[in-house]
């Protein structure tokens, strides 16, 4: 037990020295995660609403692809983006490999199917009376969309939370396309891997505590929004 207490002591010491390097890691983590969640949910929620209500041939196939996407191994997504952005790859000329933009791209790929899938579930679970009433009203596409999101808000906020959860905890894909370059593409998860491999457990645990606090804060905010949404019902 003494050993673990020592690690925790080192972790606290590491955190008290909160310097520019660590700040850069935290800021980049937040920027990449929030951007990827916003883009993924921003696209995924409208697509999810549409997919939950539309009836067309090929819909089941599309739902199947979304479900596979929800469980897509991040390293595979990372490998795919790596091949795309590699010098000789189709998007090699963009020179985006090992940049935060590439990390946002791969994280968005991981967040999108989750945002779609959870939204489809939330909209499909709306009461038949609400669904029928929405169909019965003459609404513009935009007001119909906002009405549906407002009615399915608890599930839709869940879609945002699940997307953010996947993105902030992700390590494999960002490591591959970001490269964990200090001061450029290093985020909390890749930094933890780095410190662990070098047996600097105090630093690794310190970074882990920050990750935990960020995750708790963001999910706490989303849960609070969810419970506010529920109370009216």
């Amino acid at each position, binding site marked *: 037990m003494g050993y673990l207490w020592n690690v925790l002591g080192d972790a606290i010491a590491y955190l008290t020295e909160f310097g520019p390097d660590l700040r850069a890691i935290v800021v980049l983590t937040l920027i990449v995660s929030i951007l990827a969640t916003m883009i993924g949910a921003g696209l995924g929620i409208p697509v999810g609403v549409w997919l939950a209500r539309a009836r067309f041939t090929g819909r089941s196939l599309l739902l199947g692809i979304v479900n596979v996407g929800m469980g897509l191994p991040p390293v595979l997504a990372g490998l795919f983006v790596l091949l795309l952005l590699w010098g000789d790859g189709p998007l090699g000329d963009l020179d985006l490999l090992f940049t935060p933009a590439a990390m946002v791209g791969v994280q968005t790929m991981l967040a999108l199917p989750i945002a779609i899938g959870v939204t489809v579930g939330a909209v499909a679970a709306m009461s038949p*009376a*609400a669904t029928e009433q929405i*169909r*019965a*009203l003459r609404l513009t596409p935009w*007001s119909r969309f906002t009405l549906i999101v407002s009615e399915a808000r608890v599930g839709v906020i869940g879609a945002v939370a699940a997307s953010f959860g996947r993105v902030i905890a992700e390590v494999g894909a960002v490591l591959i396309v970001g490269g964990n370059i200090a001061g450029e593409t290093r985020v909390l998860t890749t930094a933890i891997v780095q410190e662990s491999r070098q047996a600097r457990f105090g630093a690794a645990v310190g970074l882990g505590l920050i990750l935990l606090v960020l995750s708790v804060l963001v999910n706490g905010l989303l849960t609070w929004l969810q419970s506010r949404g529920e109370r009216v*019902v």
Partner: protein
Amino acid sequence: MLSDDFLFSGLRFPGDGSVISDLSLSVGVGERLVLFGPNGGGKTTILRLLAGTTGRSAMAEVAYLPQTPYMFRGTLEKNLVIGLTNGEATAARDLAAVLGLGALFRADAQRLSGGQAQRVGLARTLASAADLVLLDEPLAAINAADADDVARLIRNATSTRALIAVSHRIETVVALGDRVAIVDGGRILQDGPPSEVMASPVDDRVAAIIGIGNVVQGTVVVSEDGLTELDCDGFALFVSAQAKPGQLMTARFGAETVALYASRPVGGTQRNVLSGNVTDIVSRGRLAEVIVDVGRPIAALVTPGALDALALDVGHEVWVAVKAASISVARAD
């Protein structure tokens, strides 16, 4: 005869060999049609097909009130005007005020009672400028005391449009319908004015659904102490109601409540005693329906034994007696 301003054909659900296949339906502007029948007979599905909330998209621009009006998050007023133009929203507020919701505009819509929610849905649907109005069980959640007024409001709001309503209650058919279509098993079994369909159902199935009975319209001549005399274009009918002279009323009484006598009955409790000739006798299962022309046809249900005892036949003169208390009335203006 009204024109078929809205003609729908080939309605089907949910595909081949389904509940509804190749059903046709028409309604004219200024006409009110009530689809009547037992639960599960397909009435609501027909309405949803017309509204486009199931199957293909809507076949005309319609205003549609679903069976259970759903209240979205927000105030009553937000729900009242949702999907309406500014002009329609003003009309909806006026209608809602008439329906007694004036003080509740700021209320949380999701805490409204079923009856209040139905009034919100009604006001919103009737305020729409669409030429075809579709109402699913519009009076179901309205308490009996207000049903008459709400029915009048619906009739007035749809007088220059076409209305198709759905109901499984005969009171709603009489209160709203110029025409009734008996729906069961996904088919229209009979279609006509309620008085005609009730007095002359085409078969036992229709008779069992709507009940054999009489629907008569009349103008109030005098109303005193709860007894009202109606002038029914050729004969007087006494009903148990309080009304203003000059008011148009619809009276309904079941054929089983009509008693027949070979000679004028005396000393009875019936307020309505009329004489006429038997014009038709139709077998209705174990009973017989006797049609007597008292200035208009009145249907009476009797047992075969009673038919024999009176030796009734077509052309014979009989006396018809109906208690005022057996007659339900509703305003028809």
